[in-house]
């Protein structure tokens, strides 16, 4: 039996999607506007893209953000997978409740509290031990790993609990050691979840303003921090161009990841 959507539902869906995409579309359209005034259309131009590529502050910040996001996503992937494995496979061990609570709490913790508390930790640590010496890429990456671990753990744990464990048991019965079973059987089965988790941790890090603002040092301004200070001064066509490039990158990345997962 086929059911038709009611006109009300169709109307609400149209409204919903227009609401979601109209602001994004306006940024893209006006990034090609040759006028500095954001609302007056004065003709098509790549002018702001040229200005963007000549903007050294943005280039430097983009590079730092990339570096931080690569470290953070990889660190979060390793730790998050360990967390997920422990929670999915070890039903009881000393301190499991605290472990599970700490692993998932960052999911629902306001960023501003995570950022403030990590900064206060870094300051106290430096005072007590001399490490970390000031703040920079390392401290931002540590903060972002801690955030990303929670997201990776949730995604990977869901995958670990959903596939048939008989596969692992069969390999064990056939004489494979636990490490071999993990790398030959488990790892390939959870690979899509690992890819999704890494990508999510990368995006969260690359996009984060609040936690980075607390944990960054003077020489480690990230891209969102540059965008934020520029946006606070008003709308700028260069930021529109930058936003468009980020949108294209995300669409390509998420589309590609989606296809990758589907092929598997």
């Amino acid at each position, binding site marked *: 039996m086929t*059911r038709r*959507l*009611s006109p009300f539902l*169709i109307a*609400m*869906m149209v409204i*919903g*999607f227009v*609401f*979601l995409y*109209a*602001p994004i579309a*306006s*940024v893209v359209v006006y990034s090609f506007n040759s006028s500095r005034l*954001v*609302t007056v259309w004065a003709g098509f131009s790549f002018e702001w893209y040229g200005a963007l590529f000549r903007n050294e502050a943005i280039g430097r910040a983009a590079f730092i953000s990339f570096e931080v996001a690569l470290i953070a996503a990889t660190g979060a992937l390793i*730790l998050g997978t*360990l*967390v997920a494995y*422990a929670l999915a496979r*070890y039903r009881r061990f000393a301190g499991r409740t*605290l472990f599970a609570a*700490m*692993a*998932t*709490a*960052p*999911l*629902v913790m*306001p*960023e*501003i*509290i995570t950022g*403030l*508390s*990590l900064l*206060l*930790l870094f300051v*106290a640590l430096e005072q007590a031990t001399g490490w970390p010496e000031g703040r920079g890429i390392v401290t931002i990456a540590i903060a972002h*790993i*801690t955030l990303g*671990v929670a997201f990776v753990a*949730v995604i990977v744990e869901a995958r670990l*609990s959903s596939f048939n464990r008989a596969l692992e048991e069969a390999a064990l019965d056939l004489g494979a050691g636990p490490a071999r079973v993990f790398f030959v059987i488990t790892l390939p089965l959870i690979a899509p979840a690992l890819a999704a988790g890494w990508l999510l941790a990368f*995006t969260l890090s690359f*996009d984060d*303003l*609040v936690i980075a603002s607390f944990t960054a040092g003077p020489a480690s301004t990230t891209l*969102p921090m540059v*965008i*934020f200070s520029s*946006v*606070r001064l008003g*709308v700028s066509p260069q*930021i529109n161009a930058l*936003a468009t490039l*980020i949108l294209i990158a*995300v669409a390509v*990345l*998420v589309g590609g990841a989606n296809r990758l997962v589907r092929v598997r």
Partner: protein
Amino acid sequence: MNARRFGVVALPYAWLLLFFLVPFLIVLKISLAHEAVSIPPYTPLFDHGRLVVTGANYLFLLSDALYWRAYLGAIRYAAIATAVTLLLGYPLAYGIARAPARWRGVLLMLVILPFWTSFLIRVYAWIGLLKENGIVNHALLSLGLIDAPLRLINNDFSVILGLVYAYLPFMVLPLYAQLEKLDPALSDAAADLGARPARAFWQVTLPLSLPGIVAGVLLVFIPAVGEFVIPDLLGGPNTLMIGKILWDEFFTNRDWPVAASLAIAMLLLLALPMGLMRRFLRGVA
């Protein structure tokens, strides 16, 4: 615990203790310290072996109306935004769940995609749309619908709009997950038994989608309460939210003890919804 288990658990456990639990204890400690002209700018917990704590920061928060208004303001903005998000997100999720199967994946992807794009840029986009000489006013003026530009930004309206926009995907996803599981035959059965569509919705569909509503409400309300970027960029001088006040105390006033006690106050406010959320996440897993 055998050696292998220890090998798997020890590293992430140590990491989470050091970078998640200990930082909270430090926030708690600093919220009980005095502000000081030193590096770092607060008094130590132990002075010559004597424990020094003070409730002065909390008393200060209680005595100054600014903090009360910011605290209540955050709850108010977050509650209104959550309600609007639910009203907008429910039909959207329901429509996607009832759409032909070949469309569902694409429609769901379209809801998720904005979540992957920069949060900051999505908030920024509204400035260009809403400001006095922005796109919306420009369009309304040239259509002759208004004579003078409307004041659309730096007020309550723009803050709530920004919150709804930023967190709409968080509402739609859990609602969709719940609604998609519902068998449409249930609505048919209600209709066969003589219920009008509205009654079938209120008595069958809505109660069965309650877990999705709870998850969506919590997923929107919790981050909205702590939001800083949206009140800062889209709000005005009268927009008081606890996250923004905390930011200003820390970065502008450099009063670390007051910022720390604001963080503790915010955690107390969110303890109940966060506890519910954790229980809910565990239920899903």
